[in-house]
């Protein structure tokens, strides 16, 4: 395939300056990619998500690009312009002038790819290796990775203000292969808001492989806001490992882009851990949002909750695959999952599949899926109060999705996201 040889050239260029061990790592990932290639509809996990469009675009991995983006144009796009802690990556490179890291508590360490020693990169790659070998596209990330960062919060350190982490793409036809690692040490607390934005309306690719470790009694609140450009591709793999009595609350908002696939998996490995995976996708044009999630209960006495809501308009398509795996030892697991979809157009559609695999007998697991349209009675009720049909419809759509924002723990972020969703419904 032409596209394979295209990426092979990129691979050769990227690995030029690597140390031998990093080169070897890339080489193994490349071989994996060469063997598996792009996923096809024949694969169970990719049954509803075609990679054909992705294969047609020869994105280039261009790491030495010096960005000429003005500070104002960046600032105006930030979800929290006034954030105390800001990490802004422009085309994968840490932008010093837009970031602000000096107020982070001592127990927090941030390091971006460019600042890492060969040793540190090697270590990171080692830890991410299992993730880089899950399928062809994660392997491609492993072969081509040239950006990313690590964020570590030491034991007992509580970061009270959210850390805003921004990925801004400025150039068309570029591919960004990033790795990211977040570690929240014992009893530590962290809130991260990760935002993906773009200045180009043309195609590009954001590929990111992430791993989070949440240690005993630690807590990570995470919000992801995908505001990719109209033609942007977004591909992400997230592996979360939770230890005893740890807490993870993730909210994923897929608001734009032409093609996106999020694979999120959290493994509860210590008793008393809790995971929330929530999300919302709003699709207005001919585009696709795919969420594949896995919540894996390995031990007893953990709980999880999952709520994904989708609004599908135009020729929008969504895929939701929510897998809940409860091992035999994971007694007293409490787990609930729901996926609700609102379809606003004849051409829109969703493939939703709850996948419960429960091997323990003393558990409470509930799940539900709905696909529906605007409720005529509710619509009539609002119009009967004098509200015009379009606004009434918008209010109902907002009302439908806002539940996901309501669950965000931090009051300020909750409000911020509610407003964001409200604006997003105006499109």
């Amino acid at each position, binding site marked *: 395939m032409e596209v394979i040889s295209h990426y092979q050239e990129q691979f050769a260029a990227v690995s030029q300056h690597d140390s031998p061990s990093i080169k070897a790592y890339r080489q193994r990932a490349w071989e994996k990619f060469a063997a598996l290639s792009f996923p096809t509809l024949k694969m169970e996990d990719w049954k509803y998500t075609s990679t054909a469009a992705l294969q047609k675009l020869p994105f280039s991995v261009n790491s030495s690009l010096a960005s000429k983006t003005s500070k104002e144009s960046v600032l105006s796009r930030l979800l929290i312009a006034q954030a105390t802690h800001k990490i802004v990556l422009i085309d994968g490179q840490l932008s010093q002038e837009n970031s602000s890291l000096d107020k982070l508590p001592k127990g927090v360490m941030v390091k971006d790819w460019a600042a890492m020693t060969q040793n540190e990169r090697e270590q990171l790659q080692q830890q991410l290796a299992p993730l880089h070998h899950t399928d062809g596209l994660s392997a491609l990330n492993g072969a081509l990775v040239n950006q990313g960062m690590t964020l570590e919060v030491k034991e007992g350190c509580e970061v009270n203000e959210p850390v805003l982490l921004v990925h801004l793409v400025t150039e068309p036809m570029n591919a960004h292969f990033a790795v990211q690692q977040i570690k929240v040490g014992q009893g530590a607390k962290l809130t991260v808001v990760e935002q993906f934005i773009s200045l180009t309306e043309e195609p590009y690719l954001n590929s990111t492989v992430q791993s989070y470790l949440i240690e005993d009694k630690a807590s990570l609140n995470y919000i992801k806001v995908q505001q990719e450009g109209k033609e942007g591709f977004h591909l992400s793999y997230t592996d979360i490992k939770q230890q005893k009595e740890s807490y993870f609350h993730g909210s994923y908002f897929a608001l734009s882009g032409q093609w996106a696939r999020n694979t999120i998996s959290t493994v509860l490995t210590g008793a008393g851990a809790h995971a929330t995976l929530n999300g919302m996708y709003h699709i207005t044009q001919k585009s696709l949002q795919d969420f594949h999630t896995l919540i894996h209960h390995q031990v007893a006495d953990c709980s999880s909750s999952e709520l994904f809501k989708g609004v599908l308009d135009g020729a929008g398509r969504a895929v939701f695959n929510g897998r809940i795996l409860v091992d035999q030892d994971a007694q007293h697991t409490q787990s609930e999952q729901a996926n609700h979809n609102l379809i606003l157009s004849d051409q829109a559609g969703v493939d939703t599949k709850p996948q419960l695999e429960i091997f323990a007998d003393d558990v409470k697991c509930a799940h539900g899926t709905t696909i529906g349209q605007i409720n005529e009675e509710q619509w009539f009720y*609002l119009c*009967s*109060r*004098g509200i015009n049909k379009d606004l009434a419809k918008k209010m109902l759509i907002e009302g439908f999705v806002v539940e996901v924002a309501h669950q965000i723990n931090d009051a300020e972020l909750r409000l911020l996201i509610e407003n964001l969703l409200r604006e997003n419904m105006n499109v």
Partner: protein
Amino acid sequence: MLEIKNLQATVAEKSILKGINLTVNPGEVHAIMGPNGSGKSTLSNVLAGREHIDVTAGEVLYNGKNLLDMDVEERAREGLFLAFQYPVEIPGVGNIYLLKAALNAKRQHQGLPELDAMDFLNLVKEKVKLMEMNEAMLYRSVNEGFSGGEKKRNEILQMAVLEPTLAILDETDSGLDIDALKIVAKGVNSLRSPQRAMILVTHYQRLLDYIKPDFVHVLAGGKIVRSGGPELALELEKEGYAWIDPSAKQSTVNL
């Protein structure tokens, strides 16, 4: 204000309203009573603009305009208000958000500027007090998880904020306890004026003890079969409908 002439309507190809004639003048309060399934809610809904009801004959004039030609929202902005027999729950849409959107729509229609946030809040809080409701209700989703009585009270709150010219209350009294009934009546009476009119759909005299009607009508089998003064309601309370509408004797509910 309202002139209904020979109104006939069908729902799902079933004839429900079979020639309604009713005239309501400013300042008047009309009570409509009648057996279950006789078409009272259907009539209320036709007036509010419910689309799944097909009007097959007749006309309705509202302040001289053809009401049936107007959009649902336009009717409301022109001062028509329906308090629903079964108010719907709307998860995620705040009560106060609805009130604001509705009031501003009406003001815009009247060529008035939007109320600023402070004035709006003061107005709403005053009405909440009138209805003896808890302010927290404003910040809950519309009717979601409200008790039956709370839903009815919420309807009257909306009415009090929107100050309609013609209010139709479809069994607002059903399911209310005595105290709530008094509060609802207080809300309704506070709106009574020579410029406004009301249609109260009810099964019980007890509402009419608090809101005195000028006329009472009996709707049976899709027609108004009897009209009279307040004393008609008292007679109905004693005798039931059978003496007026022979068909009501073997009143069976077809489900």
